């Protein structure tokens, strides 16, 4: 495996993107990054700009307004990068599938933008921080 992916697995810098979520998943993500769960052991760090990020933590169902901005955020994230879809809404629109404001499941739009995108699904409503850590670790060992 190339040294790029090996280094990526050892040090993952995350950026949090909210595409129209109810904020439950966002609260759990912020919980995850506190000293109690200590994700710095895995090399995970929260960064303030998508240009510094290796992984996007995406929550929310993907509303029409948000998808426009998500395309820009994804294109500004330097490749190689991983997209983690956190929560039932991000994994496949959840209970809002018939909503008038829903643009579509995020992974479908992501595949149209970039067929080689690496996408990981962490279901739950909201997923517990332990579930998120498990999802991230499993994804990183499977790349």
């Amino acid at each position: 495996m190339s040294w790029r992916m090996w280094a990526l697995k050892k040090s993952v810098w995350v950026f949090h993107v909210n595409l129209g979520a109810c904020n439950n998943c966002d609260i759990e993500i912020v919980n995850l990054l506190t000293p109690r769960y200590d994700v710095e052991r895995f090399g995970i760090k929260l960064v303030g700009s998508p240009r510094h990020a290796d992984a996007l933590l995406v929550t929310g169902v993907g509303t029409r307004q948000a998808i426009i901005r998500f395309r820009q955020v994804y294109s500004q994230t330097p490749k190689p990068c991983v997209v983690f879809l956190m929560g039932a809404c991000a994994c496949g629109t959840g209970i809002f599938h018939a909503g008038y404001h829903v643009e579509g499941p995020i992974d479908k739009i992501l595949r149209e933008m970039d067929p080689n995108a690496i996408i990981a699904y962490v279901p739950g409503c909201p997923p517990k921080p332990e579930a998120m850590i498990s999802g991230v670790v499993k994804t990183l060992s499977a790349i």
Partner: protein
Amino acid sequence: MNQQELKDRLAEIKDKLIDIQQPLDDRIFLSCEAENAYAINKFLFEEVPLRFVITTGIDSDSCYEILYHYAYDQIGYIITLKAFIRDRENPSIESIAPFLPGAEWIEREIHDLLGIEFRNHPNMRRLILADDWPEGVYPLRKETRQ
């Protein structure tokens, strides 16, 4: 004011109302037609006076209803004014934002979602629908389907 004085104050505009109901101890419902809503709101906000909480828009099958919720905190009462808009083709009501700036945004939201026109609104612009949402499509109306 205690509750009896409050009810006496509310009875002063009885001629503009359809009826007054009190289904629970601390809940009063006043009903009126849409034409009288502006004057009643002005009375409730300025004369009584009550604290404005929020406005609700409902699409009942025969008419539209706009509910104005007020609170009287000294005794913990919530007073709601129901205004019936009978015209379903071009629903329209007088905006209360000129004397109650706090209602400006909620009226914009009701206009976005239900298509009710608020006359004399100081700043009617799109609030919560997406920028590229088509004009004239109001998502929360009963006849709108995906």
